[in-house]
């Protein structure tokens, strides 16, 4: 397995570090803005991958308090965050069972969380891209966001992020009436 591990790290560096830079070069040369800026932004989001799992924990008692709850409202963990940390990275850092299949590039809805309403209102409006993904999230509520897009600020102290319920029937529930 050792050769495999080395190859993996080579590939990761190519994907995470080199490629966005490469694309930047490409787009400064290219004139097609629409698709370009979209892709580019996604890649910049993608560069946040590097931070996953290595969020710096603030000194106990000094950070912004966040409560993670399961879908039944049971408290899973209260954690402390620094300004600017995103909820997906924080969840990974603290072993909360929140997926990030696309690794924070706004291409899936697996990091969907439900926020406490008073804190939800403090956030900037979700982007079109985020809303498009929320359209596909299961158990969507009025205060749903993608965890990767929620960056913590001081005023969000004591915010609750609840993991949505996922049922086995989501293939049925999450879908519009079938064809045929």
């Amino acid at each position: 397995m050792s050769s495999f591990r080395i190859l993996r790290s080579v590939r990761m560096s190519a994907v995470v570090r080199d490629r966005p830079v490469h694309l930047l070069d490409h787009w400064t040369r290219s004139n097609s803005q629409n698709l370009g800026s979209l892709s580019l932004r996604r890649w910049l989001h993608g560069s946040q991958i590097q931070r996953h799992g290595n969020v710096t924990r603030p000194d106990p008692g000094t950070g912004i308090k966040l409560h993670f709850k399961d879908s039944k409202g049971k408290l899973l963990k209260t954690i402390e965050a620094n300004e600017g940390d995103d909820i997906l990275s924080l969840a990974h850092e603290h072993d909360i069972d929140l997926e990030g299949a696309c690794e924070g590039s706004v291409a899936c809805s697996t990091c969907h969380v439900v926020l406490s309403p008073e804190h939800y209102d403090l956030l900037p409006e979700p982007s079109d891209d985020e809303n498009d993904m929320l359209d596909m999230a299961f158990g969507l509520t009025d205060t749903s966001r993608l965890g990767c897009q929620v960056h913590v600020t001081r005023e969000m102290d004591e915010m609750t992020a609840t993991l949505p319920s996922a049922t086995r029937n989501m293939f049925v529930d999450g879908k519009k009436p079938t064809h045929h």
Partner: protein
Amino acid sequence: MPPPVKLAIIGGGPSAFYVASRLLSLLPLKDPMSPPLRVHMYDRLWAPHGLVRYGVAPDHPEVKNCTNKFDTTATDPRFRFFGNVNVGSTPLHSIPHALHLPLTSILNNYSHLLFATGCTMPTLHPAIPPSVYCIPALSLVHWYTQHPSQPPPPALDKISHLTLIGQGNVSLDIARILLTSSSVLRQYDVPEHVLEVLSRSTVKHVSIVGRRGPLEAAFTTKELREMINLPEASMVPIEPTLLTPPSGVTLTRQQRRTLELLQKGSKNRPGSTPKSWSLHFYRSPASLTLPSSASALDMANLTLAHTCLDPATHRAVSTGETSTLLTSLVVTSLGFHADPETTFFDPALRHLRSSAGRITSSDGSALKNMYASGWAANGAKGVLASTMIDAYAVAGTILSDIAPSSEAVTAAAPPPPEMEMAPDELLDCRPDLDALPPEIVHGIKDGMVTQYDDWKVIDAEEVRRGGALGKERERMGWDEALSFIALSRARP
């Protein structure tokens, strides 16, 4: 100590990997309470990751980030991957080089079995069978992803008008690829030979036909927005009456946002771009009349039946009217179904017969230690997130069978149903954990079976070759991969 568990997973796509990943992480290697466990994954393709590699559109590279997690799963010493192995009763015609492994060889070597075989067959339209003028969308997807089934390249340099039947995301993927300049696509994971054909494309217009209305369209807002924002194409405006929801209907959030996008129309003004596209609602193909002369430049005549929604059933019913559309190529994109050759295939469901993650016999009772997940179990619907949630639920079901006292099996878990052993499909309840079916042992020796380390060698080389060309990746075909793996094994 719970009894040892040796699980075979047939299929190496996202559902398979998410089940494997969940199971291996819920039963940590170092936990003395974990049963001795092996997870062996078999894929009929030589490369892993199923639709993530051979289905996701090349200009959606972010979606492929999930393979990082799959790579991590594959580092677990209890996990093994065997590629280019087709498990089933008959050899695979579409991929002749795949090693044939009868299901009995799996049953004789494993205690548990998961079918994550997906939906690999395109659903065709009965009124317009495949011909030179009508191909399934899957053959285009397989062409631009360099799938081992090697469909012929489409003659894009000889056609001007293409019609897609079906309004799902696969349909929009194809439309987007055809309406995007090859100079933009060049940076992505698009093979050079595909780019070469795309660069010579003379396609000017793509019509996207659906038998129901905008509220029933299966595409997602993300994909629709990408179409709306295409830099070199514009959308033919849609009749406003079609975009007014019937009174008394409460729209879902997605429906409301879809209508808003369609009302706003494309970013580029209609008629201002060299390429264009249109959505045709309430139209269902009735027939395709091929041109009389053999010249490929002649267009075929697609007759479309006009339809409306039956208010009670929400099905499309014909109004009796028809219209015709001149088109150079019809591409049917009407969904997928499981391979009827798969054991436990249910012809009525068009996927495997299963209930809550367990394979069931024809009388509905669950078969012991046999499971199904993903599209194989549920049909071809849902995005990656739904596949993941389903896979985690199936992993939970497997866990409740193999480690009922495990902490991860909560008190709330439903009790297992009445189960029976399949009379002719007996799994081995005391398997030799590290033994492999003899066919696989031979296949590995002959170099015909790929393992995950082999894939990582290919993966790194594909990315390296891509980098040299200024793109994400340049793919290898089987022959090239085969000799490259042999070379890398020969190196000290």
